[in-house]
């Protein structure tokens, strides 16, 4: 970074250029340019897949959901507000699909059932998350997360990986902010318990 450029200006330049670049890609994609849309996919899919994967716990389902989210976004690109960043929009679509999937899967199961079920860390190396999570510590953490009851896991993932506030999570899941607070706390408690060896 050249010393002549004031720090503040340099920072805003990066942000501005980057925003314009994304906007150009979206504008091109709106006109049917799939190559530009492919670039948008490359920019955002990694983060998106991580969230969906941690929410659903299934690699194939997560890939399907992410693909579906991008297809829906492509079909609705004209409705997208160009003054806003793209990621929150695509993330909302993917979240909606992932939460619907979770709802369908957990239909009939109560939170008590899940809480009473024996929680243990499974060896995720042989599970569906392999190939995408390589580091040993990451695997253990992912396995612990996967072992959480779905309702605890969901709020924790939304808080940690989507940086949503308690209020935002509450609105998304249609529950109270107090419930979100309680579930995040219980998720942390379980994680501490499950990862006690790692935490020393």
């Amino acid at each position: 970074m050249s010393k002549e450029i004031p720090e503040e200006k340099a920072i805003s330049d990066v942000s501005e250029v980057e925003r314009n670049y994304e906007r150009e890609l979206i504008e091109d994609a709106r006109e049917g340019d799939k190559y530009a849309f492919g670039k948008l996919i490359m920019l955002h899919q990694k983060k998106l897949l991580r969230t969906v994967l941690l929410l659903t716990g299934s690699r194939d389902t997560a890939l399907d959901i992410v693909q579906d989210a991008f297809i829906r976004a492509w079909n609705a690109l004209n409705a997208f507000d160009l003054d806003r960043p793209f990621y929150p929009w695509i993330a909302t679509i993917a979240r909606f699909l992932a939460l619907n999937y979770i709802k369908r899967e957990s239909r009939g199961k109560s939170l008590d059932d899940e809480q009473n079920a024996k929680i243990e860390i499974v060896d995720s190396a042989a599970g569906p998350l392999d190939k995408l999570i390589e580091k040993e510590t990451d695997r253990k953490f992912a396995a612990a997360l996967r072992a959480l009851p779905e309702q605890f896991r969901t709020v924790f993932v939304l808080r940690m990986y989507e940086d949503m506030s308690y209020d935002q999570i509450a609105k998304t899941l249609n529950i109270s902010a107090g419930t979100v607070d309680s579930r995040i706390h219980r998720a942390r408690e379980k994680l501490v318990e499950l990862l006690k060896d790692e935490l020393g």
Partner: protein
Amino acid sequence: MDKSEIRHRLGRFLDGELPEEERRQTAELIRQNPDWQTEYNTLLTIRDMADRLELEADVSFWEKNRDEILDRIKEREKPEAEIVKTEKSNRRGMVIKLLAVAASIAIIAFVSIYEFETISPEKSLTSPQMRIDDRAVPVPETISKEEREQMEQLAEPEVIDSSYIMGGETGAVSEIVDMTDKDAVSINLAGGPEFRRPDRNEAAIQEFDKKEKLLPAGRDAADEAIKARTKKLPEKPPEPAIKEPSPEPQTTAAPMNAAKVVQPKAAAESKPQEAEGYSAEDLAETVEVPIQELNPQKLDSLDNVYYDLVSKHYQEMAVKGRDVKGDEEIQQRINSVASAYFLNGVTVKDSSTVQKMIARLENLADLSPDSAMRDSLIQLADSLRRLNR
């Protein structure tokens, strides 16, 4: 307060969900109370583990997924194009059928005129007095009575057939087309009245004329729609968005190109794992890596560097009271990393590290015992927020 209650409070503190007063009290408790400090560190470790969890697939995995998405989009567009194509081919088929019907009409009309000219009006085909041996075409003498009767019987259906072909009965042609090409239903419905004989029904004539007038325009519009829908998109060679920096942003971000990415020695090597676990002292030893040499693996390293640079460094500084480098140097490094992110197709605002860093720096500012240190942390958080704006 038991451990669980302490963790609950600390969790809300980390999430930025505590009211101002409680937040200050909690920060004070972390500074002064070893139990609180221990629990705080436990939750920090959990959060660090969550932050560091990254999907490790290589570029080809992401490119494959991108291609699958684009293929699925193309697949979904396909049926639409096929429907239009079917309509177009059906229209062509209809023209051929129309011509065939017109040719039949012309032949029948010719035969009728010929008959009217050669047969007297009172002995027309429809006349009750008409008998087969009265027809202008002479019947050979050698024909037997049975054969003659047979011919008389055959003559009757011939009249019905011609009426049928003329379309005298409503929807006759449509029914034929419907039987042969079920996909053409919509076109038949639109074009049905065209095949009725005009002199039988005035309303049908008017409708026929109306449709004839409208048809060319309708066809043009349909052709335009087909062209628009089947218009080939500009083919561009697939180019990995992360692997190589896009030329456009490089030109617009000219000042950034001159920047070298400042990386610690460990992170400058291609293996991302080696970036982990270096000390704050290591951060001082920097090497310059040209931006062009960066690849996704190096970016991962960079992410770790970035994380350690800002987070761990300040964390140690704030909690353990270690010396810090000047803000200017830290900010320069952040800018360099941001440039590298951008030029390699990773948007800074989508880097979860940046977003989390802001909240983290604010928490650390609360924890910081020294007001100058607190100010510098808040200033850094503000810089990141501007970057992330």
